[in-house]
């Protein structure tokens, strides 16, 4: 197999079964070095299984993958020395204190006793955990737990960091902290592969996104590319007078030739548009018919709309519980 030194991860037809379920059903990846790569998909899509294989925790049933050129099964130890994984659930020892956890892992990684201590203190300070350093991790809040998890993953700054749903169940403040950490990691040269169920998160952080559904990548690209692949954009109109809506709906349908969506707000309408040049005509058409418009926006589709178009269902966890 060819080696692309510029790629952090390349995989070819990765497959993993659990019993009869094909959790991962032929994943092909080419993740560039540097930046954030996002796996976007609902619960049970195969995101976690894929990164567990890439982090050498799980042996693929078939297919191959290389991390920085090292084959994940045959050269597992070489892979392990370049990557780090922060799992979805606490990946530190909850019975130990924050300091003890970091010292333990630093010692295992080869630091001497005093170096390990110094590194632990440095990380606790960087992650705003000094006050909790001597407390057992089981007493930590969700955000603190997440931070100690990530701190434990970067004792030796990895070249590639896997973050499995790093912000699930976090409050907005803690989520922003984690996002800041991810961005700082990237500026310091670490490649981050993160999984998320949240479109906003992928949109905010990821340079490239792979949309995963039922163990397969259904789309891949920058968030802009993904949005473009779905259509040029969405038109949102808000009328001054809700009574005008039926009339406006008729106009829109006539002029654009696409279905018009009526929002729950009685004064709003929206439509997916494939030919943006028609939008200007529509505006003059509306004013000619004396339908006052309060706001008018034409933008790219949201990632949620992308997901819906690509997979036929929403990307939210609830809607997919039955589909796992």
């Amino acid at each position, binding site marked *: 197999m060819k080696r692309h030194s510029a790629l952090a991860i390349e995989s070819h037809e990765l497959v993993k079964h659990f019993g009869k379920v094909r959790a991962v059903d032929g994943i092909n990846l080419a993740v560039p070095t540097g930046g954030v790569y996002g796996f976007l998909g609902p619960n049970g899509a195969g995101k976690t299984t894929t990164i*567990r294989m890439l*982090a*050498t*925790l*799980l*042996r693929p049933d078939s297919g191959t993958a290389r991390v920085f050129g090292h084959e994940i099964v045959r050269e597992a*130890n070489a892979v*392990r*020395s370049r*990557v*780090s*994984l922060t*799992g*979805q*659930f*606490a*990946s*530190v*020892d*909850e*019975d*130990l204190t924050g300091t*003890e956890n970091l010292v*333990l*892992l630093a*010692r*295992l*990684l*080869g*630091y*001497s006793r005093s*170096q390990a201590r110094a*590194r632990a203190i*440095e*990380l606790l*300070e*960087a*992650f*705003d955990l000094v006050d909790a350093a001597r407390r*057992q991790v089981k007493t930590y809040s969700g955000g603190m737990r997440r931070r100690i*998890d990530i701190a*434990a993953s*970067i004792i*030796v*700054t990895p070249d590639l960091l896997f973050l499995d749903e790093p912000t699930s169940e976090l409050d907005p*403040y803690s989520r*922003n*902290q984690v996002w*800041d*950490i991810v*961005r*700082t*990691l990237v*500026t*310091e*040269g*670490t490649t981050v592969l993160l999984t998320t169920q949240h479109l906003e998160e992928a949109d905010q952080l990821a340079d490239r996104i792979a949309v995963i559904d039922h163990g397969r990548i259904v789309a891949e690209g920058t968030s802009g590319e993904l949005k473009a692949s779905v259509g040029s954009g969405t038109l949102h109109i808000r009328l001054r007078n809700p009574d005008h809506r039926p009339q406006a709906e008729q106009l829109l349908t006539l002029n654009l030739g696409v279905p018009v969506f009526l929002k729950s707000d009685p004064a709003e309408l929206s439509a997916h548009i494939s030919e943006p040049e028609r939008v200007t005509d529509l505006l003059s058409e509306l004013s000619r018919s004396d339908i006052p418009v309060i706001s008018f926006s034409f933008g790219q589709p949201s990632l949620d709309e992308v997901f819906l178009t690509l997979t036929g269902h929403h990307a939210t966890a609830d809607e997919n519980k039955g589909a796992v």
Partner: protein
Amino acid sequence: METQAFAEKGLRSALSTHTRPPRSSPLSASLIFWWRAMLKIKHIPEQMFDVTASPIMFLLMFTYLFGGALAGSTGEYLQFVLPGILVMTVAFITIYTGLGINSDIKKGIFDRFRSLPIWQPAFLVGALLGDTVRYTIASVVVVVLGLIMGFRPDGGAVGVLLSVLLLLVFSFSLSWVWIALGLVMRTPESLMAVSMIILFPLTFVSNVFVSPETMPVWLEALVDVNPITYLVTAIRGLMFDTTVAKEIGWVLLTCALLVTVFSPLTMYLYRKKR
């Protein structure tokens, strides 16, 4: 923004250290895992209940309940039963090695350890070393309580030390069985049930409590092939200064067999885990 400030503060400098220390040796990695086991004892001291309370309970119960009936006097029975109780309590404690591994697997920490570039068996070896400390504590509890109750071994301190050493070697070897089971079983409860089914007959169908001569022939035959019987005989011999070289040989052979079969099997299961 506050979060921005937090990120800028120390994070950048904390991340700038890209140098990787030399890989830890198998021995030091194992000792670090042993240290983790010690920290666990420090933080959850109640887990030491089984290594302190149960030996006390067993020794008091069996000596004073059955001593008079089985050996004529409790004092005499104590000399007979103490080595047996010692073996039995420590053998039961070995189950906890498997339980500890089993509960670690359920947590994210197991993935963390397995994704580290370290000598992989260190995790298991360290846990075993930690448990050896627990076996030692249990042994000390039994022997000290015995001495208070009137246990007088002819073999003296050396005999007692050697017998505890032999018991530790045996327990270390037996633990591999529970670790292997701990990797296979889904829940700590099922692991506990299976190990009890194995350990109860193993310890009771032996010479721990009574001399096998009083048993039916078929049962005596069974007792005679039980490794626990050899171990108890060897320990009685060491404590009372009688010749038991043959039994010690059998015990060590059993240990070697357990380790050669179960440690590779355990490592195979460990690597294959999910």
